[in-house]
């Protein structure tokens, strides 16, 4: 069914391109594939995709780690939640562009600023999801850990993380899709390489085939990561429920 759905999408696209008959504005799939093939052979596309993937991975790791830790704290302690909540509301409502521009101004046009900007945008949503998970932790299992004097490492691994797993998985899956989109904006605004930078160059020359080729290639890679890494992990984490 998925393959059929994709085939229908490409069929409609091809049909629309033929009807429009303006290859500069809406190129047909073969023109996009041709661009992609040439960009792959020249090494530009793999290089740009690799750089962007590294930035996505770094920002994803930072936002998941920071968002999960702070979200867990807020979910477990009412006092911490009261302190953190106003910050959370500010971060949730701050426009992405403001965060990115401020990071570049304050830290400089470098990868640290780029990754930090993406992480700052993503952290609040991870926090909210994990906070809900932490609030839903079963106090009965906390008591079990207490009376059996389980070491904190075992408590975290065997009792807390399995209960948080569905929330971490949800935060991870939604996090990845948002993170890579923000990384492209960050690259477009202030990096000399990566998919976002390449898209900016292609925009300058109105190269729609190139824009589509990069867009589809990177989206396909992210879908692959989700299908190969995130979805199986989520399925594994929830296996006991079935």
């Amino acid at each position, binding site marked *: 069914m998925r393959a059929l759905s994709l085939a229908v999408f490409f069929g409609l696209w091809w049909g629309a391109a033929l009807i429009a008959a303006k290859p500069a504005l809406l190129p047909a799939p073969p023109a996009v594939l041709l661009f992609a093939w040439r960009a792959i052979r020249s090494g530009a596309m793999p290089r740009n995709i690799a750089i962007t993937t590294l930035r996505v991975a770094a920002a994803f790791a930072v936002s998941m780690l920071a968002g999960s830790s702070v979200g867990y704290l807020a979910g477990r302690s009412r006092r911490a939640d009261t302190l953190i909540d106003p910050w959370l509301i500010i971060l949730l409502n701050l426009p992405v562009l403001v965060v990115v521009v401020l990071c570049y101004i304050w830290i400089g046009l470098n990868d640290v600023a780029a990754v930090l900007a993406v992480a700052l945008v993503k952290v609040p949503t991870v926090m909210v999801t994990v906070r809900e998970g932490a609030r839903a932790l079963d106090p*009965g*299992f906390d*008591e*079990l850990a*207490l*009376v*059996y*004097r*389980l070491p904190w490492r*075992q408590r975290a691994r*065997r*009792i807390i993380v*399995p209960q948080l797993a569905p929330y971490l998985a949800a935060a991870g899956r939604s996090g990845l899709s948002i993170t890579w989109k923000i990384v492209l904006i960050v690259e477009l605004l202030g990096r000399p390489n990566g998919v976002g930078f390449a898209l900016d160059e292609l925009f300058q020359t109105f190269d729609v085939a190139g824009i589509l080729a990069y867009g589809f290639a990177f989206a396909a890679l992210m879908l692959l990561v989700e299908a190969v890494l995130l979805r199986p992990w989520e399925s594994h984490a929830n296996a*006991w*429920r079935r």
Partner: protein
Amino acid sequence: MRMPGAANAGARYLAAHGIGETSSPAAPAAAQPAGYGVLGVRIDGKSYADAGRRREVLRDVAFAAAAGEILALLAPSGAGKTTILRIVLGLDRDFRGEIRLPQGRLGVMFQEPRLLPWLTVEGNLRLVTGGDPSEIPGLLSQVGLEGTENLHPKALSLGMARRVALVRALLGRPAMLVLDEPFVSLDPRSATELVSLVARAARRGGTLVLLATHDVDQVLGYADRLLVLGGKPARLAADCPTSPALCSPNEAAGRNFKQKLLSRFPFLSAEPAPEAAP
């Protein structure tokens, strides 16, 4: 630790019912020298906030116990047995009084099994063994659950899950076993088997057992002492030692003892067992 309340209640109970001296393995706190017992419980008062007011649920509950002793905390549902156990375990610290626990490991069986649903039976048991799983197969076999090691709790009946929880409590030769309504939802035969398992652990390993139940029949026959809670707020109404003769349901002395107990404390008459979820 001085336990005047418990001693007086027990002595009053015995005198009032003419049950006389007993020869239980461990005599009551009143007969012991100062400092007796590895467990000391003194709850002067315990109250809960209820609609903006404090509602006192426990007052003057005091008792001590020695290693190897089996204490049955007997009271109707809702009288405060679980609250006492929670205070003893350190899960509720909002009370007036003092608790002294035995040195060593605690084995606990909550009213509901509290098995981690994402771990197998073996995983649940290994969690508390501290790296020594050698006892697991033997104990599982003793409760009739051999071959269930790889099952998840979801695949167990409530009775089976409760037996796994009992095995978890017994692992590692605990210094003290705390059991909250341990035999609810078990058929009489399984309950008898588990009773003897708990009694063996107490006799052989010197494990102190503190067990809460609402059912007199469940504890007659193996408890060394009955701690009866009654009144509002609940107080220790009786702390009476038992003996095999007094407790055997088939012996005249045993039947007499139970009748006297029930006539003195009518609230201990049979009542529906509380529901528990796996």
